[in-house]
């Protein structure tokens, strides 16, 4: 198996096609035993998800899901989000597919000089009491990812609207949104308990926002001003 360093964990997996290609920046020399060995049953994933176009996509999604479940054992989970780094911190923009996550983060890169951490499924881990965000090979169709990890600065849930506005979400509203875009379909009770514990910690430590936005540059300015604080 090939060795990769993802989210500061030693990961072994044998992959091909798109997964292999997107994992390339994470390849490393094996040092000691792996923390995680990833496998998935491509045939079974195809069977359960007949809408998948081919085995390459099934492997990409199956390995991503396996990694997400394994992360739970390392104080980690993931969020379906486009993540950028600005001033040394990660800002995540999450929403159902098609809302405009990547469109929004492209503005952060162009206007503020932010860089992409991950464009689809960044990993989140609690390391020495600090929530960190990491790039992963599961970085979406444009494969925008950076293998590094930086402290998590904020999470915004995006929705389209007529005006640009941003507000802090109370936990009652934040929980369903976070869960619906994170690890949700777990079969074991212990995994769900762990996921809820991690969600609890994230929601207590990290500012969670709701960003209502038009698809314009002003939306990014409104978001940045609130999420980075006025300096």
């Amino acid at each position, binding site marked *: 198996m090939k060795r990769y360093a993802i989210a500061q964990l030693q990961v072994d997996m044998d992959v091909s096609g798109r997964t292999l290609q997107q994992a390339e920046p994470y390849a490393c020399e094996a040092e000691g035993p792996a923390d995680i060995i990833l496998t998935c049953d491509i045939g079974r994933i195809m069977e359960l998800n007949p809408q998948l176009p081919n085995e390459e996509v099934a492997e990409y999604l199956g390995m991503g899901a396996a990694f997400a479940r394994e992360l739970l054992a390392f104080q980690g989970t993931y969020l379906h989000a486009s993540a950028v780094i600005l001033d040394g911190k990660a800002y995540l923009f999450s929403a159902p597919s098609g809302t405009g996550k990547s469109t929004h983060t492209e503005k952060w890169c162009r206007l503020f000089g932010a860089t992409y951490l991950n464009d689809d499924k960044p990993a989140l881990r609690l390391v020495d009491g600090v929530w960190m965000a990491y790039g992963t090979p599961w970085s979406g169709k444009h494969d925008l990812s950076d293998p590094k990890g930086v402290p998590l600065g904020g999470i915004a849930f995006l929705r389209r609207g007529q005006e640009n506005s941003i507000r802090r979400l109370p936990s*009652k509203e934040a*929980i369903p949104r976070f869960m619906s875009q994170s690890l949700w379909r777990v*079969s074991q009770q212990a995994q769900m308990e762990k996921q809820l514990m991690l969600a609890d910690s994230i929601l207590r430590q990290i500012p969670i926002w709701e960003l209502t936005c038009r698809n314009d540059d002003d939306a990014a300015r409104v978001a940045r001003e609130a999420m980075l604080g006025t300096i």
Partner: protein
Amino acid sequence: MKQNSAFLLREVAGTLVIVPVGKAAAEFSGMITLNATSAYLWQLLETEQTVQTLTDALVARYEVQQSKAQQDVESFVSKLKLVGAITEDAQ
């Protein structure tokens, strides 16, 4: 009706939620957050209940009007039914 045992009540960042585990998780597509009243109703649903018994319990505990209590019960029960969090005995 009573709780579907595949659903758990947990507290996340100060908010009570009901989440599915196992097979229920694969089919579930939403999430229920609870206030104090609905958390109490969920607790009662550990054993077999009807809209009537739940309404009576709310009236007794919170000193609310019967009609208001019944409204709350019906609204919560329909939410639970929607996600399959309660099971009904065959009559």
